[in-house]
């Protein structure tokens, strides 16, 4: 398929070459089309207190023809009964244009309203539901606000990062020379990954095996990518040399704010960009980068192909070992995982942090 070859010379160039570049441009133009549609039918659909946020492949810059549009109407302001009306109007408009904007998954994590108070305050504890955790982590790691007004979205992202760092009493190592890995954030990202993996089994049961193949493929690739990028964001607090030069012993507040800004800057990147940046920064060999981005490109190639995507959507677990499309996914995800293994277990800078924070 044209566009699948990468000629990248550094890791940072990979997301901007070949099919990855094509999907990225498709995501950008789809976001613009979405804004245009909403602006023409619902002028001023966002406000100081509300943002329309998209997740999934549209936010990651991996938009393919069969991608779903995962969205939520994010509210960070006073309670207002009109918010539901607006969310419903957005929903109706998207349904009227479902040929272009496919509806989200039926579990209801997206395609609805989300409230900043739950997302920021309910981290852990009895009221931190699956939906809340998912929205929070995806807001950080794979989200994008649509339209000109992004005030609410920007505030909530900062609010979430602040909340995670508020719980870490000692942001610096004992010698005050480096930032520590933000453990509360890291643990939530790890929890999110494990939750997705457990939910995979739960969904298989709930939906009587329907959609197993596609969900499995996503778990092996795009979901795992989010997890890996989240770990790297956390590790960067300790490893990023530029960040360490900004450590000031003046005030505790300044130390925290610098880290907040660092994490905010990182999560502005897409997961693939975070991987690429980290691989360059920590000296991961080009061969590994080529394998990782090559495998991901092949994954998107499968999803871009209508027949292959349909085959995965219709595939049930029992048939997976014989199914040629799924065998291809297994091969691709094997390469992807070996590349991740190299980054997280063999790289001299990252491996010690994986050992220290990854499991126990």
């Amino acid at each position, binding site marked *: 398929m044209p566009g699948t070859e990468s000629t990248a010379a550094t890791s940072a160039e990979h997301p901007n070459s070949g099919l990855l570049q094509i999907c990225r441009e498709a995501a950008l133009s789809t976001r613009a089309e979405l804004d245009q549609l909403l602006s023409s039918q*619902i*002028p*001023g*659909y*966002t*406000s*100081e*207190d*509300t943002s329309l946020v998209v997740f999934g492949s549209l936010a990651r810059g991996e938009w393919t023809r069969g991608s779903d549009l995962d969205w939520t109407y994010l509210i960070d302001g*006073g309670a*207002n009964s*009109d*918010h539901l*009306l*607006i969310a419903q*109007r957005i929903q109706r408009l998207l349904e009227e244009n479902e040929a272009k904007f496919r509806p989200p998954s039926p579990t209801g994590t997206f395609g609805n309203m989300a409230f900043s108070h739950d997302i920021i305050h309910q981290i852990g504890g009895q009221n931190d539901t699956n939906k809340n955790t998912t929205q929070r982590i995806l807001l950080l790691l794979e989200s994008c606000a649509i339209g000109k*007004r992004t005030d609410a979205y920007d505030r909530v992202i900062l609010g979430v990062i602040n909340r995670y760092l508020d719980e870490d009493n000692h942001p610096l190592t004992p010698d005050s020379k480096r930032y520590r890995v933000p453990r509360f954030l890291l643990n939530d990202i790890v929890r999110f990954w494990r939750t997705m993996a457990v939910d995979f089994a739960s969904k298989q049961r709930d939906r009587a095996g329907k959609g197993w193949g596609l969900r499995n493929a996503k778990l092996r690739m795009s979901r795992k990518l989010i997890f890996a990028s989240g770990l790297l964001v956390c590790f960067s607090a300790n490893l990023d040399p530029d960040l360490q030069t900004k450590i000031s012993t003046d005030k505790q507040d300044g130390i925290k704010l610098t880290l907040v800004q660092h994490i905010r800057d990182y999560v502005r990147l897409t997961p693939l960009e975070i991987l690429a940046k980290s691989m360059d920064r920590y000296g991961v060999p080009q061969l590994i980068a080529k394998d990782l981005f090559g495998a991901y490109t092949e994954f998107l190639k499968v999803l871009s192909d209508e027949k292959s995507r349909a085959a995965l959507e219709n595939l049930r677990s029992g048939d997976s070992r014989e199914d040629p499309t799924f065998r291809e996914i297994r091969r691709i995800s094997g390469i992807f995982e070996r590349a991740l293994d190299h980054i997280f277990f063999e790289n001299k800078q990252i491996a010690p942090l994986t050992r220290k924070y990854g499991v126990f």
Partner: protein
Amino acid sequence: MRCIGFSTGALARNDFGKALQMLAGKNVSAVELSALRQGELVPLVEQLDHLDLSPFKYVSFHAPSAMERSFESVAVELLLQVAARKWPIVVHPNAMYNPSEWRRLGNCLCIENMDKRKPIGQTAKHLAEIFETVPDASFCFDIGHARQVDPTMSEASAILHRFRDRIRQLHVSEVNTQSKHDPLSFESILAFHKVSHLVPADVPVILESRVEESEINGEILSALNALSADNLLALTGD
């Protein structure tokens, strides 16, 4: 169609000449000449004879939103020149130290309801107290201020019920939490729909939304939509 236009201060802050240029050729029939800061009053009054206001059926004037006590009598003297043209003069109640001075403007004095920042003038009760001190004054209903004070629009409804007959003009925009005037969002349009049936149809509308020139016509359409009683979703306060 409603008589509708913009405040010069919204389009070009303290450059009324530029704002009038931005409005040239647009579908507007009203304008509010804005001297929101004390220092802008003298230059604007001095220029009144030289401005081409022929495209506008309705012209109003916005007095400084705050001023030093020592400037109050100077301001009123200058504003008497504006009143001589029979233009409504929009005044913030907190800018009036001595109501008897302002009574000299007669029914050209046009009191505006306030946003959250101001110490007085937000509610129907406050406004009633103010109108007792300036009984001939008319009323500039700022629907954006009213929504900022009470997003349910209940207070807006109370104000409209009580002072509908005094209304001389409307101010329309979305007023954000910092009390800045933003373009209308769908959220504010839905809120304005709730009281649109209470807003007299013949009252001129002045938009205070800070927009680029290319956005003027779109903002006018949004405002007309917001004030159209045809779009009423649910009555507030009736």
